[in-house]
């Protein structure tokens, strides 16, 4: 199949399914070979972790049509990012500049600028492509920050309980009550961030709070699990219980919310670039949108409509991909589907896309 691994771990999960779809589970995996000089126990532990939390959930996720479409779309964006990055580096797909082609060219006229040019002669396709690497970095940084802080606060509050819980929970309650977009805008105006990683973090500055609350309630159920209790009785340290027993079980849930947070980053960043609140250092679909809307006269005639459509499609595509991935991965989180998979994978195929089998429950 055509899908390659991408930046998020969900992607690498999908990839592994592709390579091992027909083969045995014990074939070697890419990231193991990279750490081959580490002692064997590490290797085995990695393999266990991989089997339990990446391979098996990945199999369920991959079986879902939504995950597959989402991953395919995301692959397009990652390729765009690679093309932009390599192109700027090797010079085969240059960054858009003014007067690089004839001005105001309609799409599908020449191969120099397949999607036409702007009023100042910039290649529209190049603009869209060169906006991708920064967007991917932003989305990844925002997603990692939001889910990371959420996991940290959620597990701490949920597992520790008592006054720690109360303190962390009230803190995230306050953070949750502050409206995200206006806060981000005020901070963006005061700090003028330019680094895409910083922007990603800024955009999710209070996004983690709601997520942290739901992770907390997950942890509250997990900590009552027999094996966690067993670890506690055996005197295993809290840190070890958290990292070995609790957090791995949150993985699918975290992955789903990573995709949701990433979508939020896309929407917010493009919106802020559109308004010109974030300082514009490089290309962005929001800037492109703004340019087409206010300057190119896309409003009055139909002539410049393509300049509006290209960034619109770019934004919708990446958002669609993230929603599909989140929806598909959501199925992994459903314990019913997971246990079924753990036995044999053929039964999963028959279940199609539905997360709850109503027919079983209904008279």
């Amino acid at each position: 199949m055509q899908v390659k691994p991408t930046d998020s771990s969900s992607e690498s999960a999908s990839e592994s399914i592709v390579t091992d779809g027909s083969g045995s589970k014990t074939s070697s995996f890419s990231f193991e070979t990279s750490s081959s000089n580490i002692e064997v126990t590490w290797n085995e532990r990695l393999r266990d972790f991989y089997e339990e939390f990446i391979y098996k959930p990945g199999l369920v996720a991959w079986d879902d049509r939504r995950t597959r479409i989402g991953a395919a779309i995301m692959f397009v964006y990652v390729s765009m990012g690679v093309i932009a990055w390599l192109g700027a580096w090797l010079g085969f797909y240059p960054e858009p500049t003014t007067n690089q082609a004839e001005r105001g060219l309609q799409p599908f006229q020449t191969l120099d600028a397949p999607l036409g040019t702007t009023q100042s002669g910039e290649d529209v396709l190049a603009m869209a492509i060169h906006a991708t690497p920064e967007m991917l970095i932003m989305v990844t940084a925002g997603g990692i920050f939001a889910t990371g802080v959420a996991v940290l606060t959620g597990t701490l509050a949920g597992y520790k309980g008592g006054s720690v819980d109360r303190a962390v929970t009230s803190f995230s309650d306050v953070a949750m009550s502050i409206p995200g977009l206006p806060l981000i805008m005020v901070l963006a105006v005061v700090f003028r961030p330019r680094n895409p990683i910083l922007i990603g973090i800024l955009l999710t500055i209070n996004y983690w709070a709601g997520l942290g609350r739901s992770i907390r309630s997950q942890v509250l159920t997990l900590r009552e699990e027999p094996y966690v209790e067993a670890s506690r009785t055996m005197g295993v340290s809290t840190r070890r219980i958290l990292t070995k027993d609790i957090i791995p079980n949150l993985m699918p849930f975290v992955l789903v919310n990573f995709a949701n947070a990433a979508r939020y980053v896309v929407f917010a960043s493009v919106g802020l670039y559109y308004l010109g609140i974030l300082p514009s250092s490089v290309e962005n679909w929001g800037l492109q949108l703004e340019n087409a809307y206010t300057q190119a006269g896309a409003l009055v005639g139909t002539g410049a409509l393509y300049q509006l459509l290209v960034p619109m499609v770019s934004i919708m595509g990446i958002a669609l991909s993230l929603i599909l991935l989140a929806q598909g991965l959501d199925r992994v989180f459903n314990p019913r589907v997971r246990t079924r998979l753990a036995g044999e994978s053929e039964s999963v195929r028959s279940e199609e896309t539905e997360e709850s089998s109503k027919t079983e429950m209904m008279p």
Partner: protein
Amino acid sequence: MSNYYVQRTIRAVLTIWVVITVTFGMIRLLPGGPLVQLRAKLIRQGISSSRINAMLETYQNVRPDQPIYIQYYDYITSLLTGDLGKSFSDSRTVTAIIADALPWTVFIMVTATILIFVIAVVWGALMAYNEGSTFDLFSSSASILFASVPFYVLAIALVVVFGYQLELLPTGYRKSPGVEPGLSLTFVMDALYHALLPIVSMVVTGAGLQALAMRGNSIQVLGADFVRVARLRGLSDRRISVRYVARNAILPMYTGFLTLIGFNLGGSIILEQVFHYTGIGFYMFQALENRDYPLMMGIFLVITVALVLAVYIADLTYGLIDPRVKSGDASEAY
């Protein structure tokens, strides 16, 4: 039980206090923060330094020459009396600007949110009842597709198509010139006419994911034991769908509904810019562009307080609707 309400009230007040303190901290303590930049701007305009302090006081309710705790006290007391300072770019006070703009934004956002809720409940329930059918598959795909469109992208598309190409609807502004606000039919129709596109762009992009959430809730309730028992007891389909399924499926969405109003208030900054709709979002953007910190901070505070109040009301009334919440303290432990 009353304990829960008391605690919840304390938390709401505490949150508002924290947010006020945070804005004060941003204004006063951040290096390169608003007060510093405001002062720099005034110096650039050639105003003598002795007058600047007096001006800063009217603009931001902060007397820079006083000790910090007095500044803080001044700031809080003036906020509590409704004095949000004076706008830098507009000749009016911040309170006057907000009083003029807020009703329009609230009108759009409340209408949009109610429509989103109604559509989501009906559509989601229909999907759940017909789970697995072509209708369900088609609707689910459509709602995912709608959710992948940011509201401002749809807003731009709507302005281009209906405003400029077809010239059916206004491309901006909250009312036609010459129409006076009042309870006349012309005014109401005119206001609705201008609000139509903003509301549509919020509803179309917002309803999809909510409908999917409702679908999920309904499917879960449909599979619950009490619904099965109700069927075995021979209750009518109508009674089961309204009293058993609908009620239990809508409840989880209720808090989300009020939170959505507050959330959308924040989104109004982008939306109102696209439509040149002079609500608080529009003024907030003006303030951001002009570095009009008093107005910026004032609107930020108002939006935050609105959000806190919305969630507060949601939490309090949730207990009235769902009797189980009255044991709020006990369930909090879980």
